[in-house]
């Protein structure tokens, strides 16, 4: 599926967060990296119409997000960084199932789909558990399962591993890698975009680099003025913020 942004600009309370962004995204795995406030979350939100741009337009397979929001949301799933905020129903299976209520599928098929997606994401043993009592990693897997049960063609994830520990980050990253869907992943965990087809670096509302993961990570870490090793979740052998060059920007 092709996602196209045409001269997209957006501002919150007069503060620009996207500036004239022109992009065409058709690769299977696309990463978005950048500092806090660089615009990657807003860009991700424009892809399923959660944010409508102030100017320019976003096209999902030729459909404008302004005019075809419902159809686009059916085809583009969205996973948030705070999985708790995404949980609508009290128990795990019910939360997964609610996304299918308007699908037009029969009750038996809905049940089968829910069971399959719970099984696939390691939640089958938790089907009747209160969703808010799951661990952070399980909650994020639930958020993923709740979106995937509707079988979207594209999955947009906005920092899905930000609130997770290293182990759960690895579990979620692995789950994302194995998905057959096209994935657009905005993240601060640079390891999770390794092996991606394309990674965009964002800064101050603009795409400042667009290329292979290793080059994008190198560009981003140079931009931030930190060692690439220190920026990775495993810490590497880096020495933290550099005191010269581009300067450290918190």
């Amino acid at each position, binding site marked *: 599926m092709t996602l196209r942004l045409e001269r997209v600009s957006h501002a919150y309370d007069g503060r620009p967060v996207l500036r004239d962004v022109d992009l065409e995204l058709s690769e299977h795995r696309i990463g978005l990296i950048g500092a806090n406030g660089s615009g990657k979350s807003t860009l991700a939100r424009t892809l399923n119409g959660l944010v409508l741009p102030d100017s320019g337009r976003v096209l999902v397979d030729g459909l404008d997000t302004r005019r075809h929001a419902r159809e686009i*949301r059916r085809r583009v799933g969205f996973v*948030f960084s705070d999985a708790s905020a995404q949980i609508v129903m009290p128990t795990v299976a019910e939360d997964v199932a609610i996304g299918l209520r308007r699908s037009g599928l029969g009750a038996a098929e809905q049940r089968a789909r829910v069971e399959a997606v719970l099984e696939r994401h390691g939640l089958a043993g938790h089907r009747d558990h209160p969703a808010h009592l799951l661990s952070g990693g399980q909650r994020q897997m639930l958020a993923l399962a709740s979106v995937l049960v509707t079988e979207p063609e594209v999955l947009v994830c906005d920092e899905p591993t930000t609130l997770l520990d290293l182990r759960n980050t690895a579990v979620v990253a692995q789950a994302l890698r194995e998905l057959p869907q096209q994935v657009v992943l905005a993240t601060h965990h640079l390891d999770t975009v390794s092996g991606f087809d394309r990674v965009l670096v964002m800064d101050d509302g603009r795409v400042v680099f667009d290329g292979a993961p290793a080059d994008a990570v190198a560009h981003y870490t140079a931009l931030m003025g930190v060692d690439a090793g220190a920026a990775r979740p495993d810490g590497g052998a880096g020495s933290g913020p550099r005191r010269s060059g581009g300067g450290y920007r918190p």
Partner: protein
Amino acid sequence: MTMAALYVPARSRRAVLHRLPAGAKLLALLVAVCALVAAADTAVAPASAAAAALLHPLCGLGVRTALRTLRALAPFLAAIALFQWLAGDWQAAARVSGQLAAAALLAALVTASTRVSEMLDLFERLARPLARFGANPRRVALVLALTIRCIPLVASAWRASREAYIARGLRGRPDAMVVPVIVGMLRSADALGEALTARGID
């Protein structure tokens, strides 16, 4: 929030209430509460509360769960009983607090033995006639589901605010916890609304 506000999966064959349809349970609850109020009897009301507690094993819950529910309600029941005693007599206090305790315990039995999705289906069916007047039955049912979902959200916002209050060494200003809870709840509502939109549940 220790009240039995959420569904408890059936763990044994004794959980007969789980097998009953949601409509039958809600109807039974309605009839029982109406009968309790109509009887207006000082002896019947506390006895009904005790009976409701003893019914808990029917949905696989121990009587202890009923006692926990009563403990959570105790401050409210005590305040209402005190008001009734001061405004009327001790019989009225015993009757009203007994009626309330019985109603709360019976309602807890219904919520503990009924999935929210079953409730959702039922309320959607019940709200269908309202569609003639422009109401959307799906939205009516969704509001109910979200109300139940928000119970743990409020509890968690309150817990976080209380922990921050204690961690900062604040004392004697419990009202200082209220604003962060409200702000937290508004943020949660915002995020929940965004998630509903993103999932196409609107």
